[in-house]
Structures are given as structure tokens and as C-alpha cells.
């Protein structure tokens, strides 16, 4: 699985000081374990598929499908060339929702834990409850990953991390999706053991 590098850092090395020193291998590519990306086009295709999957969840693909091919290209080029305004000119449309709603249809998220076998948790989860209340990050965790949330009496076992920070569990999920998603429009959430020091 090819994960965003920030996610990899949170998941595997969050106790390390930045900048993160990594070792790059040029031989013995583990073909059995990792997907080989032979060209930039493959990476672009993978990125666009993630964006499309996110929009399928948020808007039943309506927003991404209404865009022209050049808009998709602009999204990728903005990311590739580190052009914030170019990227967000398109991405902001993916962050909108109909006036009569209070948020997206479902929130694109993936929860990663180093302690489990499964690669990640991804499920359908609505940002708004039937009564109109906004669901929080804590609500999401309780629903899809209850073991990660500390029991009322126990002490905090895990850190819930996005982009290297621990958002308050009371933060509305809709807000997190709009403001803390990765460029692929997914919220990549790491659950890591609480450091003991």
C-alpha cells in the first residue's frame, strides 16, 4: 500500500525528531509486498482514483464527474508542483455541499493501527446525525474502532493523530473532513500507542 508520507511518519516514527531520516533502497524491490509504480502517470492515476473514491462517498461522484478533464489535471498538477492556489481552485469544489444539507453524504476516512492485521478501517459514516447534530471524531471512533478509545475509567492508551496532531475528540467530523483531509480528500487517521515517557 502506498501511504502519504506524513501518515507513514505518524504511524511508524512519530517519536522521531523532524526532519525524518529515511533510507532509500535502489535494489531488491519487494515486488511481492509493494506495488511498483513504473511512471508518474501511474501515481497520477492512483491519486485521481482516491479523489474519485472520496467524492463517491461525499457527493455520489456528482462533483468530480461534473468537472472537466482539465480540472482533474489541474488538481494533480497543483499537487505535483506544490501550487496551493492552483490545487485549491479545484479542491474547494470538492469541499462544498448542498445548501440544504449540513455536510457531505459520507465522510472519506481511513483509520490505521500498527497493532492490527488489517491494513485500515474504512466504512460508511455520516457526518450528521438524524437529529441534525454534527458527529464528532469521538463518535466516529466509538462506532468503528471502539478499542482505540479509552474506557471511562482507564487511562488514555492511544493517541489519535492526523497530520501529526491530536485533534480534540469533540471536533466535528465534517470540519475535519473539510480542513484536515489529505490532498486525496481522505482523512488518514493514525491510532498509535500512547508514548510512555
Amino acid at each position: 500500500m502506498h501511504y502519504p508520507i506524513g501518515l507513514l511518519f505518524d504511524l511508524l516514527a512519530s517519536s522521531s525528531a523532524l526532519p525524518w531520516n529515511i533510507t532509500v533502497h535502489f535494489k531488491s524491490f519487494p515486488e511481492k509486498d509493494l506495488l511498483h509504480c513504473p511512471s508518474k502517470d501511474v501515481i497520477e492515476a492512483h491519486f485521481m482514483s482516491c479523489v474519485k473514491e472520496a467524492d463517491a462517498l461525499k457527493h455520489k461522484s456528482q462533483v468530480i464527474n461534473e468537472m472537466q478533464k482539465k480540472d482533474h489535471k489541474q488538481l494533480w498538477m497543483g499537487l505535483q508542483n506544490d501550487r496551493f492556489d492552483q490545487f485549491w481552485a479545484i479542491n474547494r469544489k470538492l469541499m462544498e455541499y448542498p445548501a440544504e444539507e449540513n455536510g457531505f453524504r459520507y465522510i472519506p476516512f481511513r483509520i490505521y493501527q500498527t497493532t492490527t492485521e488489517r491494513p485500515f478501517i474504512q466504512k460508511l459514516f455520516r457526518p450528521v446525525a438524524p437529529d441534525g447534530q454534527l458527529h464528532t471524531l469521538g463518535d466516529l471512533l466509538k462506532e468503528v474502532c471502539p478499542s482505540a478509545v479509552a474506557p471511562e475509567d482507564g487511562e488514555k492508551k492511544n493517541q489519535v493523530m492526523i497530520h501529526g496532531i491530536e485533534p480534540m475528540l469533540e471536533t466535528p467530523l465534517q470540519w475535519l473532513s473539510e480542513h484536515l483531509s489529505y490532498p486525496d480528500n481522505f482523512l488518514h487517521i493514525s491510532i498509535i500507542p500512547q508514548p510512555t515517557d
Partner: protein
Amino acid sequence: MAEDPESSLQLPPSTAAEGEGPTEGSPETVTPEPPSSAAVSPGTEEPVGDTKKKIDILLKAVGDTPIMKTKKWAVERTRTIQGLIDFIKKFLKLVASEQLFIYVNQSFAPSPDQEVGTLYECFGSDGKLVLHYCKSQAWG
């Protein structure tokens, strides 16, 4: 779910030996494959009725891609898209160098290491996950 070999075949396990399947037919024709030639015999496989572990997948061909004679499959949740692609390619007798793309909702191609169980949870309907497959990029 009912164990009906005609409508809901079990995908052979990922470690199934190579070279299974009938020897007749060209890739362009639909080759009938009797259920018994699949690498699995129902007795040794986990029970089909264990709905927690397996999900139903309906495969639909796009364009001039050959149509699978058996379209409905019961697949373990942890099977990856790549595993499914390999299986379809073998079933359709495509050569390894030929590409096969799989789409969800006729809109996006999931990552090859994505598990079908997750896709079913998020994009399944009426108790099954519908996947379109194509030898060329149909939806970009």
C-alpha cells in the same frame, strides 16, 4: 447464502496452483468452466453460509472485454483487487502482459491492494458489490 454452484461460485484461495481450468477455447470466446474444476471443493473450504467472511461480487464486462460465463462469486473479504484481477485474467485466459482494470460504481478504480470487503461495506448494494472490468481504461 445458498450454496448454488451455478450462481455463486467460490473463488479459489489465493494460493491456488497455476494452470487450472479448461484447455480449450481462445481468450475471445467464453469458455464454460464446470464448478468442479475450480481449485476448491466445498467440503474443504470454509462454509459458504459464514456470511461474515465472504461477500458476493457481481462482475460485469465493459466494451469488448470477454464476458465471464460465471458472473457472481462469493469472495473472502480480505481478497485484494489485485487478487481478483489475477483470477479474472486467468479465468478469461488473458496473457500476463494484458492489462485488466476494475471499477466501482462505474467511476473509480480502487487501488490493487484494496480489500474487497472494505469496498463492499462502502459501495455494496442489495447484498452485493458490483464491479465492472475492462481491458482498457474505461473511466480514467
